[in-house]
């Protein structure tokens, strides 16, 4: 081992994998053993023969002090002795420092153990490719780029439900790659980035970002009206480009696969928009079968659950909203309309009128009481039973501006909203919930793997949903979900305005959704004629195979979502804007759009790219990209990357590893 220390860099690197295994074993025993001494002892035993490393741990006063001063809950040891155990990550970080030392010089070794800095180790969390092949592919490229820049990086794929649970509920991540639905209105950015939500769980500020300048702008836009609001929105996007709370990568196309010979007319709406089903015309009005990507872990039909992707579309078919957003406009839906009775700098008051003779799928009437109840539940899902409110984990931006909802008569409510009239009406675009069913769900929710206070209203899988939407639940099993067209829905009895324009009388009597564990099955089932359509992310390779099949074709629509790299702002050095700016420059967006998405995505330089207000300076230009890449053609230039980190104030070890203070 002594010779190892004196050996050249190349020789040392050869030993890294072996050490990795030993550390994996040691850290496992370490975390799963009773206390923190077992792990170290075991490591020493494991390393029997690697005397030099034992020496390192002989010194390890330094290592231990460093780790215990940085207390984080160990990743998988929920409640156990959090106070005394350093996290596995920190532990491995310390171990990493010792590996680095063995490949470098002795002076540096001493500095590492006794001194101030540790080698940085980050973990990238992504989905597994079966349901989303793009995020892990971007993650792989980012991991390789970070390694090239001297940052040891672990890529950790997991199922999509685990992924969002870790990000949105537990906040347990360093960096993640994921799809962020943005939509058409800038107020979504308040939900994603305002520091007032940093303490909450869910889609509201998932990365824990806090920037007073941005907060100020985000608050301002909600009180403004156009054209001033547009100007503020541009300022917000500029601020986001400077601070990079989430590094944008691409806007993907959403793809619907369909059989060439079917006679379905899908209308003008996006693939992930429930209106595409409401506006679907089927020649024989029979059943239409649609395949969707799924981890095959059951159907969660709770409109308040964090689940992203296609299940949200299905839930929108089951639960109507007072108003729906389409093409940047808000349209009355379950509401016949609303009057703005007051609208000034003190807020907006809306008088919202329900349509007549509305009922829930179980036959009960929908009344103004249900509306008041829904907003009360969104504000605090414990319904006042807890001293600490537990707000919803979705629709938080929209519901948080609702000051009060007052029942005027059975079909009218008076809503006081803290926003200008143009923003205020967006508060109406939340799913309406029946009070007689949801009242009892304020109790504490049981959900394995969530380490935050959460209520049954959020965690209940809601397997037999009762809503008021154009389709109602019929039956489900592990791989399929069948919905029936709602009889006497207002779309049939009293359509009018926007709702009447989009809905077709010839929409199918039954919608069957089939959970697909992989995209290959989509191609096979379409070929066999078992599916009419499938909505599932396709790799370029799978796309080519599908195009070779003469019976299947695709319809692309540019989505209003952004694939982005999220940073946990609660963890150093990810909390440093300069660090994030450099990481953002380690991804070749144009190359990713080509190789990962097969050109079925547009490279973007702003998380707000789907918004109309995107300033010219942030529009993507291939010849002069707003976020210049630190390399060429998908390969990072290690020297340029290191130089950029150095310029941002970071330091490197002699062996080229980025070091951070404890």
């Amino acid at each position: 081992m002594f010779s190892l220390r004196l050996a050249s860099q190349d020789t040392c690197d050869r030993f890294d994998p072996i050490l990795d295994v030993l550390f994996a074993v040691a850290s496992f025993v370490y975390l799963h053993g009773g206390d923190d001494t077992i792990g170290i002892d075991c490591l020493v035993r494991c390393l029997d023969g690697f005397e030099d490393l034992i020496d390192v741990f002989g010194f390890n006063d330094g290592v231990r002090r460093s780790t215990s001063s940085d207390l984080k809950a160990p990743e998988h040891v929920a409640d156990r002795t959090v106070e005394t155990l350093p996290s596995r990550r920190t532990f491995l970080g310390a171990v990493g420092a010792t590996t680095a030392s063995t490949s470098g010089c002795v002076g540096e070794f001493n500095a590492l153990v006794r001194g101030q800095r540790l080698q940085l180790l980050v973990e990238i969390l992504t989905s597994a490719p079966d349901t989303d092949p793009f995020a892990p592919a971007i993650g792989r490229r980012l991991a390789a780029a970070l390694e090239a820049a001297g940052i040891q990086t672990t890529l950790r794929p997991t199922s999509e439900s685990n992924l969002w649970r870790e990000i949105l509920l537990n906040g347990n991540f360093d960096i993640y790659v994921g799809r962020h639905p943005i939509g058409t209105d800038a107020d979504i950015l308040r939900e994603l980035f305002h520091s007032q939500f940093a303490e909450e769980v869910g889609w509201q500020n998932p990365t824990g970002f806090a920037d007073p300048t941005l907060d100020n702008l985000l608050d301002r836009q909600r009180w403004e009206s156009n054209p001033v609001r547009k100007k503020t929105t541009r300022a917000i996007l500029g601020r986001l480009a400077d601070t990079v709370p989430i590094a944008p990568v691409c806007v993907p196309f959403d793809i619907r696969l369909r059989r060439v010979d079917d006679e379905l007319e899908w209308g003008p709406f996006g693939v992930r928009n429930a209106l595409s089903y409401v506006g679907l015309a089927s020649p024989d009005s029979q059943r239409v079968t649609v395949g969707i990507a799924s981890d095959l872990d059951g159907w969660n039909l709770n409109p308040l659950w964090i689940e992203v992707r296609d299940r949200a579309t299905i839930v929108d078919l089951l639960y109507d909203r007072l108003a729906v957003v389409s093409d940047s406009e808000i349209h009355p839906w379950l509401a016949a309309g609303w009057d703005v009775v007051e609208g000034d700098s003190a807020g907006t008051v809306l008088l919202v009128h329900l349509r007549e003779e509305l009922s829930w799928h179980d036959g009960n009437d929908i009344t103004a009481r249900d509306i008041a109840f829904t907003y009360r539940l969104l504000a605090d899902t414990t319904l006042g039973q807890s001293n600490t409110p537990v707000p919803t984990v979705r629709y938080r931006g929209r519901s948080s501006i609702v000051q009060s909802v007052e029942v005027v008569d059975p079909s009218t409510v008076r809503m006081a909203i803290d926003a200008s009239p143009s923003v205020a009406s967006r508060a109406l675009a939340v799913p309406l919930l029946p009070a007689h069913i949801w009242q009892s769900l304020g109790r504490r929710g049981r959900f394995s793997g969530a380490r935050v206070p959460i209520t049954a209203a959020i965690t209940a899988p809601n397997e037999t949903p009762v809503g008021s939407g154009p389709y109602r639940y019929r039956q489900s099993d592990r791989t399929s979900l069948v919905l029936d067209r709602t009889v006497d829905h207002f779309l049939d009895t009293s359509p009018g305005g926007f709702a009447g324009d989009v809905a077709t009388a010839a929409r199918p009597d039954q919608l069957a959704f089939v959970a697909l564990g992989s995209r290959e099955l989509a191609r096979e089932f379409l070929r066999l004629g078992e599916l009419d359509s499938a909505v599932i992310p396709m790799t370029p390779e799978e796309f080519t195979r599908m195009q070779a099949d003469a019976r299947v074709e695709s319809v692309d629509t540019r989505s209003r979502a952004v694939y982005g790299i999220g940073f946990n702002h609660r963890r150093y050095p990810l909390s440093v804007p300069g660090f994030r700016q450099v990481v953002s420059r380690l991804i070749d967006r144009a190359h990713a759009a080509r190789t990962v998405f097969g050109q079925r995505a547009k490279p973007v330089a702003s998380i707000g790219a789907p918004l109309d207000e995107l300033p010219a300076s942030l529009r993507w230009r291939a010849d002069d990209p707003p976020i210049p890449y630190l390399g060429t053609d998908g390969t990072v230039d290690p020297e340029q990357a290191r130089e950029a980190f150095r310029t941002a104030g970071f330091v490197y070890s002699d062996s080229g590893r980025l070091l951070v203070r404890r």
Partner: protein
Amino acid sequence: MTFQTRLLLALLAEVAVVVTIATGITLWVVVGPALLRERIRDLRARVHEGLGAIALVLGVLVVNRFVGPIVPELSWAIGIPITDTIFRIEGSFVAWLQGYADPLLTAYFAFAYVHLHIFLLTSPLVVYLFAEDSRAIRVTGIAYAVNYGLGILCYVLFIAYGPRNYLVGEVDSLLYTTYPSLRLLTQQANVNTNAFPSLHTSMAVTVALVGVWTRDQFPRFPIIAIPTTVSIVIATMYLGLHWLLDVIAGIVLAALAVWVGVQWTAPD
């Protein structure tokens, strides 16, 4: 019946036909008509003696049926992610192997991974019914159970994605891209995070090792079992489902399982 169930049953029927034919041929070649005729008379007694071992295997399968669904959740709670470590050690070996991909090879390895695997696991249980005594069948049963038991334990302790789920874009999931409907079959039993060790490898190697161990009785069995095992082992990597390290761990597990089986059944 849903269309998935219908497709699945059709697949199972096809596999059953192949396995039955292959097992019949194996019996003919390995045991031989003379011995078959001679020993069919006291088959009942031999089945009776081997019943314990077969019950053990079935028991483990039943337990797996109930425990299986909670393994991913439990694993996420207490397991350690090792995919990255595996990749650091072996690199793009599987991607290199897939460089030799060819439609004929893919067809053969897919056949090996699904059909030959089930055949290989069934064949010793049938062949050893015609052995001199019941020890071979008991060794096989115990070794299967040990493989399964330790395998599931590893799946809880280690979260490992296979290369097709990790080296996205580099490694093709050849099995499913070529034969999508096989997915219906494999998703009944396989979970993405259960790659380390390769149970396909360990079970196949177990059969080969026991085959070598019984070579004095059935000298022709290793001649069938070894090439089949090698095909399955290569298939797991060629199809992008397992890492080289999963395979090595599978071989170690198989050796351990056979050793336990032999020790356990040793006459005092």
